[in-house]
């Protein structure tokens, strides 16, 4: 019999007061309003919360859960924005015995940005280190940092919640990944941890804003069912990277939307069209497989990700990464 799933409903805020109710529900210890330590029965580790500058707070979670748990973040009336960076949620691959494809892989988007007024659910993997950074940002701070990247009326419309929902999913950019990997090496108890964490959060914020400035503004309200439907199709694409692109007609049907609405919302949330997203992800998986040391030839990798002609594969790969597959390929030693 499996253990009953613990379901924690909580909310976040820019100020530290949200932590105590969550600590109570988890039976966790809250130290100095910043360090939350889980009871051993639930997991190893905890979270670390800091107010960094006015309008910016950070929450780091470093936990290995031992018991099944689900977190639901409730919508708040207190209005701010959240950015998630989950280091654990990126591409990973492993050898699978006895199937058509010898490689099993998991691909997820490790970064998300959303309004605190939308609800979300997290189900962490058991017995695996879950390491993630969340930034809580006030609307005023974000608007002030957009600079002259877009006309002022567009910026205002983007942040006007009666006209637009800010929401997107993506991979973690490489500068941010590097910063998070460095922070991950440190314990919450390091004397310099607080300073390192603040420095990291501020730099991650600058990377986030730089990306956001380049996004094509698509001003549209999102319902939570629309959002879920789009994310389901993007996960469908991620789960089927070795196949051919299934086509927008099929995906729109899967999402229960018209094709034009589907394409618009997909681009708003994922920042690429469905087809280019699929091809980019396919090549990212290929990059991962090329460097995995599990293949005898580039042709094998090309076939694995659904290219029947190695030449086409190499050309697409070079276009995406600027290097040819053979420059990064690590041949299997078996």
């Amino acid at each position, binding site marked *: 019999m499996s253990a009953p799933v613990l379901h924690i409903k909580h909310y976040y805020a820019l100020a530290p007061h949200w932590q105590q109710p969550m600590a109570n529900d988890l039976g966790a210890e809250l130290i100095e309003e910043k360090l939350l330590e889980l009871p051993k029965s639930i997991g190893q580790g905890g979270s670390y919360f800091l107010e960094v500058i006015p309008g910016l707070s950070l929450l780091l979670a470093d936990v290995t859960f031992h018991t099944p748990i689900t977190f639901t973040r409730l919508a708040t009336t207190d209005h701010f924005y959240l950015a998630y960076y989950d280091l654990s949620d990126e591409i990973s691959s492993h050898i699978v015995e006895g199937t058509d494809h010898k490689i099993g892989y998991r691909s997820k988007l490790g970064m998300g940005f959303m309004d605190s007024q939308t609800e979300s659910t997290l189900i962490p993997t058991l017995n695996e280190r879950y390491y993630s950074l969340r930034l809580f940002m006030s609307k005023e701070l974000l608007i002030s*940092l*957009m600079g002259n990247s877009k006309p002022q009326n567009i910026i205002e419309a983007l942040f006007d919640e009666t006209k637009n929902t800010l929401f997107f999913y993506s991979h973690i950019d490489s500068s941010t990944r590097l910063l998070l990997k460095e922070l991950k090496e440190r314990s919450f108890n390091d004397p*310099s941890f607080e300073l390192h964490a603040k420095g*990291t959060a501020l730099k991650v914020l600058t990377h986030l*804003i730089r990306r956001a400035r380049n996004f094509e503004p698509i001003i549209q309200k999102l319902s939570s069912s629309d959002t879920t439907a789009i994310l389901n199709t993007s996960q469908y694409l991620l789960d089927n990277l070795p196949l051919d692109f299934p086509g927008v007609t099929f995906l729109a049907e899967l999402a229960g939307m018209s094709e034009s609405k589907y394409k618009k919302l997909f681009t708003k949330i994922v920042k690429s069209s469905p087809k280019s997203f699929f091809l980019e992800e396919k090549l990212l998986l290929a990059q991962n497989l090329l460097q995995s040391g599990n293949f005898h030839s580039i042709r094998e990798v090309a076939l694995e990700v659904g290219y029947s002609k190695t030449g086409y594969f190499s050309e697409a790969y070079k276009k995406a990464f600027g290097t040819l597959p053979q420059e990064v390929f690590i041949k299997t030693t078996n």
Partner: protein
Amino acid sequence: MKEVTHEYGIDLFWKNNLAEQLDGYVDGNYLRIPQEIHSGTRYVLPISPFTTALIIDVTYNQPVTFHQRNTKDDFIGVYFNLTEGEAFHVLDEVSRPVGRWNYNLAIMDSSLDADYIIQEGSKTYMISIFIAKTAFKAYLGKLPQFKEILDEVFDSKKNTFIRYERMTNEAWWLIEELRKIDMDDPLYDVFLKGTVYALMANYMDQVANQEILIEKVVKEDLTAIISSQSTLLDLITEPFPGISSLANTACMSETRYKTLFKKITGLSPNAFFLINKLSSAKQILENGEVTIGEVSAQFNFATPSHFAELFKNAYGVAPKDHLSYF
């Protein structure tokens, strides 16, 4: 020659005076200084209620003498200084240069006066961080070796914060990254704050391995030690002059001389002398045309094999093997 008497602080009351002394004015976060004095920017940003940062990115167009005379003794200045060339000189009572400031990181108690001259043509990039002693105390209190002596360390009757040293590679990279950011972008302030926290974190990691010497220091002591270092560098080919003669020149007891030297530089006078001797000898060897025996004699080492042994201890390779890489 421009003479500037100024002060710093966590609150920004000093900005106007410093700008005026340099014939300039305050413009938001910037101090605008005329080209005759220096080109480039001076930029002040409060980081938190306990911390303020000053960025100096300038080329001096005339020599400027700075007399730092703080009226507040409630903060510590941490100065990351990437000045190019032999530009920074420490002055004595009658404003004579007594030695070059050959470090790139200084931690100084705001109660300590300091006089510097910066030469014409020198390029300075410096991040100064002013941290409230209360905040500094909270951070250092987390380090095990500070726990027991924390109150004594922060008792201004007993102790003065002063340390000249080299910044870590990580700190250097953090500063290089900041230098690439456009100062007119609103993101600059966010990135600068991030850099300041990262530099403070990096400094905490650096200080975690250091020995703490509790001692009161005044400006004359600092001048005497820098002057003494200069003397040692001038005598670099000679044998070590001995503590008693050095202490005598610095007008201090031997014990106090040794303590202050170590407190300020992290090294004993002997170790400082040896490290610099070996480094000079290494440079001459690398230039070629001399033998190990000749260099050993030139720098007054007892024997070439003694020199080789000290060299190997310092750099991990014997001088002969080191040369074969060239």
